């Protein structure tokens, strides 16, 4: 495919014609079978091509203090972290967790772990101790890099983590460290200019991201260094990053968007990215865009809807004229939000669809392509996507008929396994298709339209919460006899967690008990998993064999037909 002209986007058909992932391999200077390391591709390679002095990371905290790191800083500081991890006795293939807020050490540590051959396991820093333990235990994690403010959670579970040899506290100055803990101050550490980067290959494990399912423990989607091929090209074509752009991705690297498109995508493209380590505040966000002249913004529907609530007038108080391209991910972007963004920013948000397992955007609205507000767009070239029948798993030819979103495996960033869970991995495939777990239709123009999830997983603000995890945490509460967690519609977050609870004898419903249950789940799992509503009931709907039937409760919340209830126990 010819190099893209600056002001003329290729048509969808032009993008498809003769597509080959080798386009990206050539641009990355990589040949299949030769050594490949994402850490090197995102830092040393950019320096070698002469962009070492270019800003890679403009980081700002909630006070407004900022620091800028060049690509040469990325190279040297990730070397420094990699060398330190090796000195601590950590080696290739070991799982090394990053459990931090969006501080520079998180981004630099991500590259550092990859450079020394470790498998990097980023986890959302708001996770409570149960969520943290489940994921560290499953992965057999050898080391964790964290901050003083989060180390308390690690301390409470470390005795149950025999594989966890090292707890590295990156801001330990003045803190009393305990067993297995090591203080690490990147600013004081001697710089390592040369580090022998681990010579991985396309299939060498790189990143382990956990995602929730309907049943059982969260599953660790294991990715490989070769994923950079897909992340590089989708960033370039879908997010439309160009050499002079300043890019802002709202996602936290504890989630896959924050690594695929908050680290690997932009930096493998040699792009400058800005990071704001602060919670949501509309004025603050607009001021950030204005201050750093952000040109490309990758956000999420929940954030966009929160901005909508603040109104167009607020957006117009700021100079947001630098914005050139807007994209969104996490859950379906409603048509109103697309139309509103045109009013507020003079640009429409382009919806993109993908998930932890796919590693890269798979269905999308490309820049220059006519947007149908509310549609997910069309498949990325090189991705064979279909809507399949839920029984035969054959593609549905009839336009507009609802089926399951299915992808033919084989693109570079597809997960290679669920960690320790071959059965769970195998269950994701039917008739040669990978099933995303979502229902959709395809229209006459080939655009995909999201209909809903095909399981009980709750998509809240773009993050998946497993009902089983919530119910397990609830059982730890002394008052709870049984519970069922379901998705409840929410105007901002699309869905939130609602739980139905039966109480043990001696306990009665009260506001105090409701608050206590909320806080237990928030602290044990995460704020995302905390029930936003609790309904105390006398009994839960069950099958005659005693299994709780969530679908009945969910249907009531959504005002949908309850369906066949002939197999349920009588009240």
């Amino acid at each position, binding site marked *: 495919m010819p190099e893209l002209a600056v002001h003329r986007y290729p048509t969808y058909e032009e993008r498809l014609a003769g597509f080959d992932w080798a386009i990206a391999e050539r641009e990355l200077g990589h040949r299949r079978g030769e050594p490949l390391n994402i850490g090197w591709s995102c830092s040393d390679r950019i320096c070698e091509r002469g962009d070492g002095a270019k800003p890679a990371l403009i980081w700002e905290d*909630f006070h407004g203090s900022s620091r800028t790191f060049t690509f040469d800083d990325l190279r040297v500081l990730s070397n420094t972290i990699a060398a330190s991890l090796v000195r601590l006795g950590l080696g290739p293939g070991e799982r090394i967790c990053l459990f931090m*807020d969006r501080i520079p050490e998180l981004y630099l540590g991500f590259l550092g772990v990859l450079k020394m051959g470790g498998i990097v396991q980023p986890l959302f820093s*708001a996770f409570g101790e149960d969520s943290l333990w489940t994921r560290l235990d499953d992965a057999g994690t050898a080391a964790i890099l964290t901050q*003083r*403010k*989060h*180390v*308390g*959670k690690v*301390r409470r579970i470390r005795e149950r983590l025999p594989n966890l040899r090292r707890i590295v506290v990156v801001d330990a100055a003045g*803190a009393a460290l305990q067993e297995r803990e090591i203080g690490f101050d990147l600013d004081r550490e001697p710089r390592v200019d040369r580090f022998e980067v681990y010579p991985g290959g396309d299939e060498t494990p790189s990143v382990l991201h956990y995602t929730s399912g309907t049943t059982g423990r969260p599953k660790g989607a294991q990715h490989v260094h070769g994923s950079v091929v897909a992340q590089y090209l989708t960033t370039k074509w879908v997010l439309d990053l160009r050499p002079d752009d300043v890019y802002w991705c709202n996602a936290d690297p504890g989630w896959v968007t924050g690594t695929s498109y908050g680290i690997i995508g932009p930096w493998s493209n040699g792009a400058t990215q800005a990071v704001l*380590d*602060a*919670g*949501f*505040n*509309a*004025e*603050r966000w607009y001021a950030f865009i204005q201050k750093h002249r952000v040109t490309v913004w990758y956000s999420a529907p929940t954030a966009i809807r*929160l901005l909508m*609530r603040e109104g167009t007038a607020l957006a117009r108080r700021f100079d947001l004229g630098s914005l050139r391209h807007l994209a969104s991910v996490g859950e379906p972007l409603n048509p109103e939000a697309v139309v509103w963004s045109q009013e507020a920013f003079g640009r429409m948000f382009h919806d993109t669809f993908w998930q932890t397992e796919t590693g890269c955007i798979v269905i999308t609205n490309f820049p220059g392509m006519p947007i149908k507000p509310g549609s997910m767009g069309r498949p990325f070239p090189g991705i064979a996507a279909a809507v399949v029948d839920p029984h035969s798993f054959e593609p549905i030819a009839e336009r507009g008929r609802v089926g399951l979103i299915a992808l033919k495996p084989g693109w570079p960033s597809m997960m290679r396994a669920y960690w320790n869970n071959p059965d769970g991995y195998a269950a994701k495939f039917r008739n040669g298709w990978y099933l995303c777990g979502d229902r959709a239709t395809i229209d006459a123009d080939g655009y995909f339209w999201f209909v809903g999830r095909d399981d009980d997983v709750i998509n*809240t*603000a773009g993050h998946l919460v497993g009902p089983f995890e919530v119910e397990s945490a609830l059982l730890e509460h002394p008052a709870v006899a049984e519970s069922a967690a379901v998705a409840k519609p929410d105007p901002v977050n699309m869905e939130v967690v609602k739980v139905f609870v039966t109480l043990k004898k001696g306990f009665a419903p009260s*506001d*105090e008990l*409701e*608050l206590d249950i*909320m*806080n237990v789940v*928030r602290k044990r799992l995460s*704020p*995302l998993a*905390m029930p*936003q509503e609790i309904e105390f009931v006398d009994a839960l709907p069950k099958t005659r064999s005693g299994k709780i039937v969530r679908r009945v409760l969910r249907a009531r919340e959504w005002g949908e037909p309850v369906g066949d209830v002939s197999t349920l126990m009588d009240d």
Partner: protein
Amino acid sequence: MDDLKRVIRDYVVKEYLEEGDDREVTETTPLITGGIVDSFSMVSLKRFLERKYSIRIPDAEATPAAFDTVQNIAELVARVQAGAGRA
């Protein structure tokens, strides 16, 4: 710091700061933008206030900005209490 603000501040410190997190919370410390309370946890803080002060805070008023500092929250509670008193 008056009683209302002290109650809110103490609850935030007890419920939302981790062990080892030694940040000082004053009446102007940013809670939402500072990452101490997120938009999901805000719901539990709202429930606490409603229970403690026997009020109902309208969802439309429970914005991230209204919950961003102890001072803002105290003003919100006082406003809702005053509104309830007039009703």
